[in-house]
Each structure stands twice: as C-alpha cells, then as structure tokens.
C-alpha cells in the first residue's frame, strides 16, 4: 500500500455522479488485514426510489458499491490507474432504513494481469447486518495487451 495515498486522494469531494449523490470517504481497514475501504452515502430525499416507504432507490447503492470496490482496487495496487467495471452483481438483502446513511465497504480479493476481482457489503448500522452484498470485476485499463479500447 505504498504509492497510493488514500487520505490525500479522498481529501477532496467527489465530482460528477458521486458528488451529486453526496458520496464521501468514510474509512479503511489499515490493520493489515483484509484491506477494505468504506465510502458513505448520506440519506437524501432526491435518492428515494419508493415515495410511499421513502426507501432509497437501488441505483445509488450500486454507484456506492461500484466506487467503494473501485477504490479498494487502487489501494491494493498501491496506485491510481484507470479501470472499467466489467460487471457488478448486487443482492439486496433488505431495504435500507429511511433516514440512515449507507456505508459501502469494498474489498479487492485478487488482481491478475488485467482483471481485479472485488466484493463488498453495504450496511446502515453495523457490518453484521448488511443490506446489500456485491461481487464484481474490473478491467485494468493500464494492463499490457488490453490495448486502448475504452
């Protein structure tokens, strides 16, 4: 975990879609264990998917987990490099509780020459009671032989 300074990287607010959603850096495991990264998605009326129950839409949770797992790859590689999400699967274990901030915890399981394998959970109280589980893969765009296709 040398060349990638996550604290400096996360010191500024996200722009683009993540900024619109209000996603911010939350923390990381630096005990030398699994090496997870956490981002936070504050509750907001604009993110509601079901006006009756006021439950968050599922889209912002995917965006949160896409980013949390993405940052976990950069931490594991020790550098920031472009990567493209190849696929992402999300299991919605339970609805997020209206009003609560959702924390997305991303983990990078394995990096090969051109692919990073990730998983993660989202929770709104404790990691022991996750509301979503994700598994995904990223294509490393700086890997040899992947060429320059976007």
């Amino acid at each position, binding site marked *: 975990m040398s060349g990638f300074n996550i604290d400096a990287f996360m010191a500024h607010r996200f*722009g*683009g*879609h*993540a900024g*619109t*959603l209000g996603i911010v850096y939350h923390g990381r495991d630096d005990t030398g264990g699994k090496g997870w990264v956490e981002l936070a998605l504050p509750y907001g*009326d*604009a*993110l*509601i*998917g*079901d*006006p009756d129950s006021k439950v*968050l*839409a*599922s*889209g*912002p949770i*995917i*965006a*949160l987990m*896409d*980013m949390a797992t993405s940052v976990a790859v950069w931490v594991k590689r020790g550098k920031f490099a*472009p990567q*493209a*999400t*190849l*696929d*992402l*699967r*999300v*299991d*919605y274990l339970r*609805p997020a509780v209206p009003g609560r901030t959702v924390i997305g915890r991303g983990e990078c399981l394995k990096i090969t020459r051109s692919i990073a394998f990730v998983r993660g959970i989202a929770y709104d109280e404790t990691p022991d009671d996750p509301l979503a589980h994700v598994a995904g893969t990223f294509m490393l765009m700086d890997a040899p032989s992947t060429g320059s296709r*976007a």
Partner: protein
Amino acid sequence: MKALMSLPPYAELLGVTLEARDGEAPVLVMPFRDDVLGRPGFLHGGAISGLLEVAAIVSLQHALAEEDGARELRARIKPVNVTVDFMRGGRDKPTRAEGIVTRLGTRVANVEAIAWQDDRDKPIAHARMNYLIARD
C-alpha cells in the same frame, strides 16, 4: 395508458424522461450531464445501473398493469438482485434504456434491461434482475 408511470425522485436526479410507445413500456432517456459523470468524458457506471433499474421497474409496472388491469396497480415490487454487464463506455450523448419482462410469475418477475446510445443493437450495458412481487 393509465397514469401509473410516475417516476421516483431518484429518476429525476438522473434527469430521466419517458418516450411513450404504443402498447409497450416507454423508453427512458437520460441526458449526458455533470450529475451522471464518472471518469472525465464518460457516464458513471452507477448512473447507468440506476437507469437500467428504473427501466426494468417501468417495464414491470407496465406488464403488471397489462396483466390484470387496475387491481395489480397495488402490487409492490421488491428488488432481489441485479447483475449489470458494462459493454461500452457511455459517451457525451443521450442514453436510452428499456426493460424487457422475460417472465412475470405470481411471486417473482425476471426482467432484463439494456441501455444504448446511437444504436440499440450496440448496447453500452445490459442488466438482469429478479423482483419479488407483493400482491395485496
């Protein structure tokens, strides 16, 4: 068509509008703007996924309404899971999406959704979802 296609606040955040079609669920259109940007010049994967999920739900609501008229309008849709494949980067142009209900059962619906830009035959992303249907 009945006025059941009210979009949730999250769809407004994405800037989504509907293009009506005869007898079919509407196509969703999401403009390219800062609010849906990921890495510079490209759509955020989360915004594409969100668009696909809204498209899937719109098509499922449409299918439920077709199936049994007003009675089913009270059916609630609960997402179980989603798998998204990202096939191309989303560029600086509008993105369209539509959902396809592959099976509508009593308790479970299987739905697919695709998103494309210039050419529907060259999707930028594809998703597969399972929904639980809670009928009152």
